[in-house]
């Protein structure tokens, strides 16, 4: 997903780009997430800045890419089930408001009103009506197709074996199917980023963090607002114990096809993408506690994705190592939300040869540009 977005924005600028994909388009975490494009889940900082910039790009994406990404704005509600969570949300919402996020604290009664499935104990929550969702697979595919139409090449089932470096500058990569010469090599390998980094002697502090999701049967009239327990944020914001699966309830309705996705978990389990019984059971238990009526619905299937966890947030642009090596990694659970802005930024970064384009400056310039210019050169 991130790779396809970068390729699209590069190709759009007329830069020749080749995406090298070990498996198929969208086979990694891009197809194993709930498609949330959320601000309410982020604490102020660069990730929030990126998310805000990305969220400005999403509404126009279907038109821009020429393929429907099922962008839907139904809002996001984060509920506190414990005092600790309530305190966390209270601090968070103030910071978010200060940063310009249209988020409001809401009472327990208002939570139930916003999503009538909530019948379990909640102490209150925060509500962000502008938060949205997409079909993650469709976004990835739309970027891939648009990139190809703009002249990018995407090689699927082609793994990178080595990165060639001559005189301190990358010269290309060697793949299972032969060499690809290039001025720049951008690591967008998600949870597998460290493997690519090692090829140029760079250590990336990115760990695979597994998230499991359960898909429910399509049911008519499900409330459309997304709901998650603040426990998910405690884990995400580093305020919870790092061990265990950090299961918190999360409910994502997919109104275009009627299904519901249940999450969420965050666990370090290596590169194992299997689902586990204790986590599936716990996800269901937490969902039922918060929304008892979900207990009567059927689970149809489940999956697990490896989010590229980075303690310091996304690592975009220069990352040490040889000249011409850049990264677009460490998006954690926000790869979907941040992919468009990541693509736009990396394209800018490469076009400027990595000079004079710090991420904060770039975001600052973007903010002042009109929304219609999404994808265009921001200066």
């Amino acid at each position, binding site marked *: 997903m991130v790779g396809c977005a970068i390729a699209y924005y590069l190709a759009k600028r007329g830069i020749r780009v080749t995406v090298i994909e070990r498996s198929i388009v969208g086979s990694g975490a891009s197809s194993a997430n709930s498609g949330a494009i959320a601000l309410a889940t982020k604490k102020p900082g660069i990730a929030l800045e990126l998310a805000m910039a990305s969220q400005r790009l999403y509404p126009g994406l279907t038109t821009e890419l020429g393929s429907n990404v099922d962008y*839907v*704005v*139904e809002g996001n509600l984060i509920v506190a089930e414990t005092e600790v969570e309530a305190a966390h949300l209270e601090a968070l919402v103030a910071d978010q408001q200060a940063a310009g996020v249209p988020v409001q604290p809401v009472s327990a009664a208002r939570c139930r009103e916003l999503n009538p499935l909530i019948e379990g104990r909640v102490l209150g929550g925060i509500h962000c009506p502008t938060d949205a969702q997409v079909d993650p697979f469709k976004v990835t595919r739309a970027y891939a197709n648009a990139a190809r139409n703009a002249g990018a090449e995407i090689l699927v089932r082609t793994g990178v074996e080595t990165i060639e470096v001559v005189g301190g500058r990358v010269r290309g990569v060697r793949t299972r199917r032969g060499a690809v010469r290039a001025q720049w090599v951008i690591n967008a390998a998600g949870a597998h980023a460290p493997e690519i980094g090692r090829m140029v002697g760079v250590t990336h502090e990115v760990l695979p963090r597994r998230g499991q999701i359960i898909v429910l*049967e*399509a*049911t*008519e*009239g499900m409330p*459309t607002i997304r709901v998650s327990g603040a426990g998910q944020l405690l884990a995400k914001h580093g305020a919870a114990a790092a061990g265990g699966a950090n299961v918190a309830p999360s409910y994502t309705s997919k*109104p*275009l096809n*009627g299904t519901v996705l249940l999450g969420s978990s965050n666990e370090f389990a290596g590169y194992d993408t299997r689902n586990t019984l204790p986590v599936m059971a716990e996800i269901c238990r937490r969902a039922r506690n918060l929304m008892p009526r979900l207990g*009567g*619905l*059927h689970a149809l299937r489940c999956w697990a994705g490896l989010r590229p966890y980075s303690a310091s947030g996304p690592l975009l642009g220069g990352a040490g190592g040889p000249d011409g090596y850049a990264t677009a990694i460490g998006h954690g659970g926000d790869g979907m939300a941040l992919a468009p802005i990541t693509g736009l930024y990396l394209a800018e970064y490469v076009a400027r040869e990595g000079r004079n384009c710090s991420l904060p400056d770039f975001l600052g310039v973007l903010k002042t540009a009109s929304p219609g210019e999404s994808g265009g050169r921001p200066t």
Partner: protein
Amino acid sequence: MNSNKPVVPGAVITVFVDGQPVQARRGQTLAAALLALGHSVLRRTRHSGKPRGLFCAMGICYDCVVTVNGETGVRACMKRVEDGMQVISPAQFKRYEPRK
């Protein structure tokens, strides 16, 4: 039923299909009971509203799913009839309209 047959289904009971009482025999699957009564359409599909009926009758295809006593996604071909059972035949979903 025909007493000349080697097998005699169970006692007559009543199940309610979309509120209408119909007779069935104990031991029958809901699908068989409904087919015996000439109910060939068990539901409408959620996207296009097309009629669907019994297809594989052995629990594989899930084309005969109905709502039984409030439980969605119940295969009529696997569910045994019970006296007083409330069956709802699923209809086409209302199309999602994005809010403005």
